[in-house]
């Protein structure tokens, strides 16, 4: 049997696990591991400029490929810098394995240099964590970590490795385990067939059905089944922010996103629905608005792999715990053999009603913004969609630009839309775009951002230079923290407390040039399309488009809160439902 040191075993385990990229940043406690990385030819290490970016990049890679993203950081500040990215992945159920160096075992607890209790600090934001006690445990621990991170409801797993454990001084017999068994961990697979039958029955009896599909459909690779089910039944589909792309965004049956900034038709249809099929969605507070007023006439079928997500905020009438792919597959089988079919008359009426809503206030029937004066952020996204043929992988940061991208870029396929939905992490967009580009080398990757968010991880422009990552950055520059400003307009009488930059922004064009990238400034509507085309023609360059947009623009629709129902929305600054 092969004899390897702890550090070598760790890297070899990653190789044998099939890991292609590790995103990381070296430091004292991780140096033995980095030496092993240096000598390993299979696992490629990507040096970021800040550990937060390592986690976001690994996260972006995971979202695009479906494989666990891998992060390697040192102890102390390296580990704590990774925390925001771990929390981001945790909230969105992204598979990730984070390896953190730790001070030597005999120093743990002594407040040693660069010591942080990483297992303790990360505890509430990981699916599980390990502190490796001796080198011989490494292969098994790595195998378990990947198994836990990628199965069931995915999530980040931390492996904290004290420096002595990776020491080159001692070697051990190395064998990477083929199988793993954890006696306390049995992720759900098949759903309860009795419950699935009940659900199909209820679906077929529905008069005003809505399919409400979330990120679980993307994570569980069940878009095909979802689309088939929706088509077969001819039921309307709405997506959560995380679910966008799981159903084709340009399909007639698609109502758009629901929730706080969801479309009028999606939110109104949800409110009036009699049966809601929730799949891989978790009735997040940004979706339900006031729970006591949520969808008063609806019976709810809730399919989720995580039992704790079911009946957490909204009581399910037919709960089904299982993988969305398997449950939807079983539903399709039942439908195939079913003698009953949906009530055609009722469904026609329902579609007529929905189309009427669409006609009146729909986001896509006509422009819901005024295309005069300064460039509007919405039209930038529309133009972006056109120029990229709706094919680009789009990452975003957090704020108004994120909502505009979600609303105005109809996504065709799952894993095309990458954003921090749960935690809402500014700074996510650029590093996530890097990870996405590593995952899909041939695809165009665009980061939609704002001049606020981009500055939270702007140092990664240097990483883009080092690895020739030709991501395109579309910065909707309104010279303000747009979403904060919007809330200050709506709830604080326009007192813009600390949401304005007051002429302190850098010259982004010059900044890009200094990194060796291309910067473009757009201020006129007439040049927008041409400049975008110019940008995407530069296939092998990072291009940053600094697009000056109307500062006063708000994101609409916007649900009325607090105490609003799904259908209570502001449709513009002056119209309310």
């Amino acid at each position, binding site marked *: 049997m092969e004899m390897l040191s702890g550090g070598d075993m760790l890297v070899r385990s990653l190789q044998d696990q099939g890991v292609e990229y590790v995103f990381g940043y070296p430091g004292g406690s991780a140096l033995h591991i980095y030496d092993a990385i240096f000598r390993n030819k299979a696992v490629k290490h990507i040096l970021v400029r800040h550990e937060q970016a390592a986690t976001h990049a690994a996260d972006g890679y995971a979202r695009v490929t479906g494989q666990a993203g891998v992060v390697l950081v040192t102890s102390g500040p390296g580990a704590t810098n990774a925390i925001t990215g771990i929390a981001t992945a945790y909230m969105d159920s992204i598979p990730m394995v984070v390896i953190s160096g730790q001070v030597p075992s005999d120093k743990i607890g002594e407040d040693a240099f660069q010591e942080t209790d990483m297992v303790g600090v990360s*505890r509430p934001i990981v699916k*599980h964590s390990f502190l490796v006690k001796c080198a011989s445990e490494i292969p098994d621990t790595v195998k378990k970590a990947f198994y836990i991170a990628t199965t069931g409801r995915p999530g980040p797993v931390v492996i904290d490795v004290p420096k002595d454990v990776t020491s080159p001084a001692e070697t051990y017999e190395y064998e990477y385990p083929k199988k793993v068994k954890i006696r*306390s961990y049995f992720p759900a697979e098949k759903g309860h067939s009795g419950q699935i039958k009940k659900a199909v029955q209820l679906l077929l009896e529905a008069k005003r059905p809505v399919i409400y599909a979330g990120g679980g459909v993307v994570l569980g690779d069940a878009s095909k089944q979802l689309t088939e089910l929706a088509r077969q039944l001819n039921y309307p589909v709405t997506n959560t922010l995380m679910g966008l792309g799981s159903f084709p965004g340009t399909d007639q049956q698609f109502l758009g996103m629901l929730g706080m900034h969801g479309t009028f038709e999606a939110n109104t249809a949800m409110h009036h629905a009699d049966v809601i099929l929730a799949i891989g969605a978790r009735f997040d507070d940004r979706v339900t608005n006031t729970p*006591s007023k*949520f969808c008063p006439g609806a019976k709810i079928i809730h399919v989720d792999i995580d*039992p*704790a997500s079911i*009946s957490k905020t909204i*009581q399910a009438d037919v709960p089904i715990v299982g993988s969305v792919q398997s449950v939807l597959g079983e539903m399709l089988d039942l439908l195939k053999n079913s003698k009953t079919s949906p009530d055609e008359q009722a469904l026609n009426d329902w579609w007529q009603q929905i189309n009427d809503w669409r006609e009146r206030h729909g986001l896509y029937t006509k422009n819901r913004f005024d295309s005069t004066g300064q460039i509007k952020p919405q039209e930038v996204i529309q133009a972006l969609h056109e120029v990229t043929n709706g094919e680009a992988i789009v990452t975003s940061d957090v704020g108004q630009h994120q909502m505009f991208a979600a609303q105005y870029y109809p996504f065709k396929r799952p894993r095309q839309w990458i954003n921090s939905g749960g935690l809402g992490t500014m700074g996510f967009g650029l590093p996530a775009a890097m990870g996405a580009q590593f995952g899909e080398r041939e695809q165009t990757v665009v980061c939609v951002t704002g001049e606020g968010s981009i500055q939270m991880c702007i140092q990664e422009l240097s990483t883009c230079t080092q690895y020739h990552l030709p991501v395109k950055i579309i910065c909707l520059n309104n010279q303000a923290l747009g979403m904060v400003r919007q809330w200050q307009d709506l709830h604080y009488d326009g007192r813009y407390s600390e949401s304005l930059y007051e002429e302190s922004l850098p010259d982004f064009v010059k900044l890009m040039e200094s990194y060796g990238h291309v910067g473009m400034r757009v201020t006129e509507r007439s040049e927008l399309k041409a400049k975008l085309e110019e940008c995407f023609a530069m296939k092998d360059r990072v291009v940053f488009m600094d697009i000056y947009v109307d500062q006063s623009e708000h994101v609409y629709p916007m649900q009325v809160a607090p105490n609003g129902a799904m259908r209570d929305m502001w449709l513009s600054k002056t119209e309310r439902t």
Partner: protein
Amino acid sequence: MAEIKDGGKSVRIISLLMENAPGALSRVVGLFSQRGYNIETLTVAPTDDNSLSRLTLTTIGSEHVIEQITKNLNKLIDVVKLVDLTEGSHIERELMLVKVKASGNLREEVKRCVDIFRGQIVDVTSTVYTVQIVGASDKLDAFVQAVSDAQILEVVRSGVSGIARGEKVLSL
């Protein structure tokens, strides 16, 4: 329709088997603080199988909160098996040690009280009795009330341990 109704609250005894490993306990306890649940009592010790610890806790919550607690506990990788003992008939025991002032004519009265509660005096000085009482939590509460506050010097309670009645067992 589907709002969660927060009905009446009740005391529950949740007992679980978890990996006897570092960090396991902190994950269980952390879950409670992280999600805003209460722990009233907590006991934990290894079982006959040294790789497992048995942890018993009591908590107060509505049906819905208890359901979320058990679901989230079950999700923890270190938790192997779990039972809500209050769902079935069960035996509940807690051990209490009480240091009581016992001088003069109080000595006899405290002794009588201990006898009534079937406790034992496990340590004696000329002025102090140390009393041990075992029973369900409300019996322990009753004893504390019975010997009036002024006489009690110190109270130590173990927290609740429990086991299901009859054939039902919590094991691998």
